[in-house]
């Protein structure tokens, strides 16, 4: 049964998350979403709506804290979107309204050639990166002893989509692998710089989204372009890293498990059992409760079923597969920690 051992005494959420990321014994499986648990209902509850909660540190921290105070998760994640550092790099952002996530205008790329890649001097003091750093400081001070404060730094493959545009970047990867590797090599400095700054701000772990998803590219692509870079991040960003890639990824989990990352946040398109078989004990898995069909569209009973499926397979950290839909009902989210507690009670003494 994964890392659960009855001999472990009561833990704080923070201890639980960090132990599970290291595949060490835990008192119970931690509930964690390394992407976002922000919802419109939670925004209303604490008066911290989008888009302001993506741009003002106090609001960002207040909304993020609800993941712990209202939902009972073991982690807090203040970075609700994937645009903060792209904004600092110069991408145009559509900030949207309360009921939608901000998005990079990828049809208006900022770079066409590898030689244009440049980390601006104000990259870490830009309002949209600074906001994250300040929010982490607030959360660390307020909740740092109780729950894991998780930051987020985007990987170079995702930054490539944002800065070059999805289609130009994917075509470049086919037409000129050498230039693509050079581009990734240059963009990775943004990943490292923002990651290290979040460690200094007080983050306990970092999510590293890098969307080399099976919906777009092959597993062989991950090996060719990203495995070694992700291994390098483990050395250069000295904190537990949680790689996040949406979609079907089981064909690249073997390579992902070789990187030395602490965990992989995986999508419901991959079955817990098959995924655990591939990664074995080399990397923890986080996930993988379905967002659109279950959390968004169904009820607590179905949520509970998916939580149990993950726990039965030995998945080390349980939570939604990705940033949850903003209209998700709170009762569905609260069901996740409840179901985890119940599963452990039912299995007490069996481990």
């Amino acid at each position, binding site marked *: 049964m994964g890392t659960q051992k009855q001999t472990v005494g009561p833990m704080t959420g923070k201890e639980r998350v960090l132990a599970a990321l290291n595949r060490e014994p835990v008192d119970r499986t931690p509930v964690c979403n390394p992407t976002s648990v922000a919802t419109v209902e939670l925004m209303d509850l604490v008066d911290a709506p989008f888009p302001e909660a993506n741009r003002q540190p106090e609001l960002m921290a207040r909304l993020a804290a609800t993941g712990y105070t209202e939902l009972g998760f073991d982690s807090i994640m203040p970075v609700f979107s994937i645009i903060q550092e792209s904004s600092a790099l110069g991408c145009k952002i559509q900030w949207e309204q309360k009921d939608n996530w901000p998005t990079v205008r*990828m049809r208006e790329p900022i770079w066409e050639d590898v030689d244009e890649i440049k980390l601006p001097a104000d990259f870490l003091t830009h309002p949209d990166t600074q906001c994250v750093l300040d929010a982490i400081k607030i959360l660390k001070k307020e909740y740092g002893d109780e729950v894991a404060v998780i930051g987020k730094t985007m990987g170079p493959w995702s930054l490539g989509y944002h800065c070059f545009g999805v289609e130009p970047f994917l075509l470049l990867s086919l037409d000129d692998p050498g230039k693509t590797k050079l581009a990734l090599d240059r963009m990775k400095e943004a990943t490292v710089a923002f990651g290290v700054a979040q460690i200094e701000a007080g983050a306990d772990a970092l999510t590293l989204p890098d969307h080399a998803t099976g919906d*777009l590219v*092959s597993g062989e692509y991950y090996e060719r372009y990203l495995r070694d870079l992700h291994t390098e991040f483990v050395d250069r960003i000295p904190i537990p890293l949680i790689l996040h890639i949406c979609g079907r990824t089981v064909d690249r989990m073997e390579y992902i498990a070789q990187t030395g990352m602490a965990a992989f946040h995986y999508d419901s398109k991959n079955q817990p059992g098959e995924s655990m078989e591939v990664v074995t004990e080399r990397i923890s898995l986080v996930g993988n409760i379905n967002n659109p069909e279950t959390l*968004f569209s169904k009820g607590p009973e179905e949520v509970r079923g998916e939580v149990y499926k993950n726990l039965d397979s030995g998945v080390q950290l349980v939570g939604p597969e990705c940033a949850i839909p903003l209209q998700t009902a709170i009762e569905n989210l609260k069901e996740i920690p409840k179901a985890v507690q119940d599963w452990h009670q039912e299995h007490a003494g069996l481990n």
Partner: protein
Amino acid sequence: MAEITDIQNEIIVDEIEEFIERADERERTINTFAKVAPEMQEIAAALIDGDNDGVDEMTKAALESGTEALEIMDDGLIAGMGIVGIKFRENFIFVPEVLACARAMKAGMAYIEPILSASGIDPVGTVIMGTVKGDLHDIGKNLCIMMLRGAGFVVHDLGVDTSDDEFIEAVEEHGAPILGMSALLTTTMPNMGKTIEAFIDEDLREDVKIMVGGAPVTQEFADDMGADGYGKDALECVALAKKFLEEEDEDWDEE
């Protein structure tokens, strides 16, 4: 029924043998290529390889040697894209490779389209495509458009963040019988339903078949919103569009 040995081009033969597993698709593809001229097989093979320069040169040369534009489009470009679509659906190739094939198709169509337009030949059908309001993601929509164009449809691409009014205006302007909407975000997929409502409000719902797709969209969600069809990938999008046209033809026949 044709045999695979009836196909001259070795690359096409290899592609069929290696990548087309379903019996019906294999039979259909063999039948298609067995009756196709060797020059068209070469164009198809270049397209499958993503060789846009090759497709460019061969299309130009074929036109200069007197081959009809329609033959090049149907027997070379569309036939080649048929194999590309199957390889993509079966995960033998991924988006970068499809993008390269679509670029090659575009290189050929740059010569073909003006000739077909001037000669007044009707396209297979006309489709309006767009990503819904509030959503800036378009790779899935663009793949559908590539496959639709690869199947001979004329597609008007409204891009991303498309409002109800923009969808309605485009359908009316082009007299399009088919509308396709895409969404990647769970926050924006309800906007598909709102657009369908807008067509009802404008009394235009009966004039257009509406198909939807996108990573978080499901058949159940599409049904709840009142869409006419849901496609989980680009090939299903093409199949749906063809089905809608067949239904339209049947309706005409009945009238």
